[in-house]
């Protein structure tokens, strides 16, 4: 079929034949569809957006041509957005239209499949964190952190409006938190870090009874396994503050259980499973203690029974939600990332516990191995920080970091520039075959 044969008049997805349209208008007793629009002349629009309709094939070609203007780079990029290999079966199963084209499970009797999948997702997060309750998704880790801050204000026994976060924090995360903090009047303040991890003494000095929440991350934004989690948790507890820990499901498969170090809330981005690199597309995790159950934002799937006496699943505790409680809701989140959560659960189940632990172990060895190789390169010292690395590390460049990043892009590689002479590098199994070429390229540009 040639392009000119493709109809581009009218919506291709409105199935009405002219005869059916006529019959429907006839049933309504009007001559044309215009008669059904109740729009005053003074605000009527003539319909000319200046967007030309195209056939499907032409649209695909246009979109492909635009996206191909991206340079083809091998990305050694992380800092919160990671590419791990996603098995094909996740793409196929999650794309089944009964999942993909369904809505929020307001009628649980016909939505058991999705509800069970979300219940399984919640359960996996409970296992990974050791905490009692996970919701079935927020937008991303930054918004989940914002929700944790407002939760801390709701559940804390004494008043106080300070939120303490590490000084080394992804800019985007801090900026989102500032917006969430603005409404309830929380102030976001930094505590010092030492060598890529929390400076616990500085944190203890900064903390007082006006602190509602202390936030820490493992791995930290610089890729270090945080070794002081229990001590950070103690500082929070001593001041009556909530301890919120940021992480991700791959790291949690291996690192200390958040419950064991005193975490009250775990947030993070679970898109490290099931999604791959999609320009920052996220899946916010939100896991907390059972005692905060009625203050949790977002959707929860629970177990009940149906009239046949069988176990069945349903959205529950909806009285926390905005369609019932309006301005007294625990959050405005309505549409969330359910389908992304489905994919993450599928990916975790495909890996199984040993596969997930192996992936986490590899995230340690691969980062430390590549750092050691880069340290051999003239003009590079790596890693900059002492400690154990997970997935990524920071390297010092004798050349200005921006110049190194620009020159590396010309060679076909992408890394972060995070300071004047600091770059950050994140290898995963996806970039494994490109490591040797990357080391060679860096050797060329770092001299």
């Amino acid at each position: 079929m040639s392009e000119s044969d493709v109809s581009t008049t009218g919506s291709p997805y409105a199935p009405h034949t002219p005869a059916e349209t006529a019959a429907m208008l006839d049933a309504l007793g009007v001559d044309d569809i215009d008669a059904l629009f109740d729009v005053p002349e003074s605000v009527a629009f003539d319909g000319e957006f200046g967007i030309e309709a195209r056939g499907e094939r032409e649209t695909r070609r246009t979109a492909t041509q635009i996206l191909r203007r991206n340079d083809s780079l091998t990305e050694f990029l992380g800092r919160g957005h990671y590419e791990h290999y996603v098995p094909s079966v996740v793409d196929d199963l999650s794309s089944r239209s009964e999942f993909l084209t369904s809505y929020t499970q307001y009628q649980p009797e016909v939505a058991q499949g999705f509800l069970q999948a979300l219940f399984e997702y919640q359960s996996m997060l409970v296992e990974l964190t050791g905490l009692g309750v996970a919701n079935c998704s927020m937008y991303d880790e930054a918004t989940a952190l914002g929700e944790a801050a407002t939760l801390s204000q709701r559940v804390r026994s004494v008043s106080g409006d300070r939120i303490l976060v590490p000084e080394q924090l992804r800019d985007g995360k801090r900026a989102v938190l500032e917006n969430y903090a603005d409404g309830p009047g929380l102030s976001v303040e930094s505590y010092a870090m030492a060598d890529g991890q929390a400076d616990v003494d500085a944190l203890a000095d900064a903390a007082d009874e006006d602190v509602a929440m202390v936030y820490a991350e493992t791995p930290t934004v610089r890729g270090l396994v945080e070794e002081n989690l229990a001590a950070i948790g103690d500082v929070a507890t001593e001041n009556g503050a909530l301890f919120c820990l940021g992480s991700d499901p791959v790291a949690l498969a291996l690192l200390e259980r958040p419950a064991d170090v005193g975490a009250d809330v775990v947030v993070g981005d679970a898109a490290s499973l099931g999604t791959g690199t999609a320009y920052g597309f996220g899946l916010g995790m939100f896991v907390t203690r059972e005692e905060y159950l009625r203050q949790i934002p977002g959707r929860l799937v629970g177990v009940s029974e149906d009239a046949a006496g069988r176990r069945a699943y349903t959205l529950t505790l909806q009285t926390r939600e905005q369609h019932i409680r309006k301005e007294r809701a625990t959050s405005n989140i309505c549409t969330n990332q359910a389908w992304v959560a489905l994919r993450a659960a599928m990916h975790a189940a495909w890996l199984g516990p040993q596969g997930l632990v192996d992936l986490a172990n590899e995230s340690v060895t691969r980062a430390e191995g590549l750092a050691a190789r880069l340290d051999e390169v003239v003009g590079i010292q790596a890693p900059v920080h002492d400690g154990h690395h997970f997935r990524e590390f920071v390297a010092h460049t004798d050349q200005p970091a921006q110049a190194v990043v620009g020159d590396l892009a010309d060679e076909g590689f992408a890394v972060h520039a995070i300071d004047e002479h600091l770059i950050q590098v994140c290898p995963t199994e996806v970039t494994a075959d490109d490591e040797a070429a990357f080391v060679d390229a860096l050797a060329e540009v770092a001299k």
Partner: protein
Amino acid sequence: MIYNQAQWVDDEDDKYEPLLSEKAERTVDIEDSPLPEGLTRDSLSLPDPAEPELARHYTRLSQMNYGVESGPFPLGSCTMKYNPSFTENVAALPEAAVHPDRPDSTLQGTLELCYRLQDYLGRIGGMDAVTLQPPAGAAGEFTGIQIAKAYHRHNDDERSEVIIPDSAHGTNFATAAMAGYDVVELPSADDGRVDIDALEAAVGEETAALMLTNPNTLGLFERDIEEIADIVHDAGGLLYYDGANLNALLGRARPGDMGFDVMHYNVHKTFATPHGGGGPGAGPVGVTEELGQFLPDPHVREANGGYEHYAPDRSIGKVHGYYGNWPVLVKTFAYIARLGDSGLADASAKAVLNANYLAEQIPYDVPFGPFHHEFVASASPQDAADAAKRMLDYGVHPPTTKWPEIVDEALMTEPTEGESKRSLDQLAAAFEAVHGEDDGTLADAPQRTAAKRIDQVSAARSPRLSWQALDY
């Protein structure tokens, strides 16, 4: 039409499809880790199915789920449209899979697509600038209200109240509260529209904004929109457009032309990207030129023959860690580019035709009118929730129930343009059948779905939210 949803029952324990953990759970001890013992957990227990088992599990779960491609899904205000396969295909292009922290110069394709989509959405909404960052409609509301707040602050004119009609989406109320505003609820007039006198009484120097959708959730166009805009603007407030119902107006009217200053687009509703069981969506926000300086950082503009990110002068900062739900935006771009002027206008035309036709065919009382894309029928004296459960047995998803509260036992129905006359007749037949049934039949429904009627009360009374909380 009679419907029987697939149902998988394990004959040993008489439960529906077992949990993955019941099929294949495995515990591994953490040993031989490159990390010292003190930094690792002791063990990890997760399902460990082989891939064929995994495939069968999720295939069975999908069969126990109902989507738009299963049948009619006229969930009012949720706008469940057909989702074209080709937009999925475009979003899955390998060139779309990039890390957000790459230098702008290496991401010209992604930035160009963002720029073009900003432009498309601006034209469609009659807005001067559009941010793509908010990851959902409610996130768009939050962004819009933060922009309004930033605008008032910039003018040294901090205000404390947001006005919201009683028929509005619940997210509006939650958003205003989340942003720190007091909510002033506006009662509807007898005709279901904004009560101008009540609005006059509600506005004042504390009014930061009025949040409004048009057509409203009753499917009614706010004919006095220009007067409403004047009242709000004269008081120094801004007019916020909730774009949840925009599918009713494509090519017929634009929020910008009606006097709205800031709006969000629910692109997963209006531009047919799938709802995915409750997300991901995307909620781009459009603003007038005056408000452009407050948009989130980064924004995309043309520069030096290409495209670049920049931070607007008085940006509110960020509402998502990166750039929003990018794959959803790619689908939106593809959908708009495919339909163009004629397709978008036709989508609205057929959506409005379908809603009116269906409203005419059903036996339930439908107060108010004339309608645009959706209508609210009253199931009274039947219980709307029970009637909805019974509709499931007829192979259709029921409307939204018991909301808005203005209509007794509300059945809020939105068929969208994707339904043919034949499927609308099927929907009408389902309404007709349920209308004629007694309370006992309704209370015992549904009978033909994967699960029978689920006890919601006990789920909330003794919450069990993970398999760890079950005795199995």
